[in-house]
């Protein structure tokens, strides 16, 4: 028998749409990806239909993995990554979530630096309107021997309406003593003076907002093989929100 569906008491599901999770339960086993030593792996995940993606990724010695996520569709969409880095491995995540209406969108990551000298970088940008909820839960765990770990988390959310919600929880669990772990987190609204400046030059309010939001998510998809498609899809979704 599969375990019971999670409840809000489970930290990793605390902000989830529990009804949608229960309906999807039991989930299939997570997709398992093993990147061999010195290998390179890249994956683009476009979540546009209200599904739960779970990936377990083990990155071998000196290997790299880059994941780009565009989380936009359905009432409830979740992308969950469980990443283990071996010696000198590198992990990059660039994620954009764009939600309106009553959508709940989540990116949940656990990045474990199991061995020395690995690097990880996570950039997450959320744009939320209506009563949408956007969540990033990101745990970086550094094992006792994983010296010279270098990890970065940059998390920002933009609320287009006061009724939208952003949750951001970068979390560090460090057992080594020679590591660099940076994390930054900001939740804000579009700068009204910037919007007025654009409008005073002739740009209509919706277009002005779109231009500023485009700038907000710019750069996240850099280096992605599908950069153009991801940017275009994101812009289209932004256009629907403003």
């Amino acid at each position, binding site marked *: 028998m599969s375990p019971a569906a999670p409840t809000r008491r489970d930290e990793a599901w605390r902000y989830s749409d529990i009804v949608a999770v229960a309906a999807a339960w039991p989930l299939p086993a997570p997709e398992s990806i093993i990147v061999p030593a010195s290998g390179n792996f890249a994956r683009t995940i476009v979540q546009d239909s209200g599904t739960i993606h779970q990936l377990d990724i083990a990155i071998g010695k000196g290997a790299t993995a880059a994941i780009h996520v565009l989380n936009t569709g359905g009432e409830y969409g979740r992308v969950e990554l469980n990443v283990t880095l071996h010696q000198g491995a590198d992990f990059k995540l660039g994620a954009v979530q764009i939600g309106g209406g009553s959508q709940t969108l989540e990116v949940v990551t656990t990045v474990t630096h199991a061995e020395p000298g690995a690097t990880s970088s996570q950039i997450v940008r959320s744009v939320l309107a209506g009563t949408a909820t956007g969540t990033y839960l990101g745990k970086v765990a550094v094992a006792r021997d994983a010296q010279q770990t270098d990890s970065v988390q940059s998390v920002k959310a933009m609320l287009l309406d006061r009724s939208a919600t952003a949750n951001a929880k970068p979390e560090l669990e460090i057992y080594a003593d020679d590591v660099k772990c940076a994390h930054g987190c900001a939740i804000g609204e579009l700068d009204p003076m910037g919007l*007025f400046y654009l409008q005073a030059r002739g740009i209509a309010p919706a277009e002005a907002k779109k231009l500023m939001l485009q*700038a907000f998510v710019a750069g996240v998809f850099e280096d992605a093989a599908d950069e153009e498609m991801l940017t275009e899809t994101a812009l289209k979704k932004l256009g629907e929100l403003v």
Partner: protein
Amino acid sequence: MLQITNLHANVGDKPILKGLTLSLNAGEIHAIMGPNGAGKSTLGYVLSGRPGYEVTEGSVTFNGQDLLALEPHERAAAGLFLGFQYPVEIPGVSNVQFLREALNAQRKYRGEAPLSGGEFLKVAREQAGALGMDMDMLKRPVNVGFSGGEKKRNEMVQMGIIDPALAILDETDSGLDIDALRTVGDGINRIMRKPDKAVLLITHYQRLLDYVKPDFVHVLDGGRITRTGGAELALELERDGYKELAA
């Protein structure tokens, strides 16, 4: 071209403009001078439609149109340009992209065909060159990391590209060194000193007026125009100060 009649406006609950009347004809350059807190910047913001600046009484017509009924972007398309006292930084949006979108939005509003990338760059290069700004700066995000003087110069480049009928320039001279002041002054003359255009220069000091000679000088004090004269009034103000004038 611009007819302001008995204009009253509040910022929040505070009345700032208290019955301002002013008329600008095509071909004229007007300077508005006045002490701090007189309502000079408020006038610029009210005319360009900044949210939070509420008109409580009076009217403004621009080329026969009720200006106050238009949204800020519609006012721009109708030919009004506000040169900001503090140009805003917009991270992530390049000057070139911003200006092309702005210009084409205005053209679309007026029923004109958009400029292609190439056509736009030609205009942008001309205007930037005339104001001594290199193209690399035009490719950078709007005003981000620009010095005070570069921001003001950028406002003039924007004005050159957009080519408005009426420019309201809010302390465009502040933060400029002497050379930049001359460049900006030359820019204003070149772009706006034309029979079908008008300028409202908002300034504290006489020095910009050495380069851009106004046809009329108005003193704004306590939310209304208290005196009007020719270019010589600015010199008088510079010599005697506003207090002396009020006495």
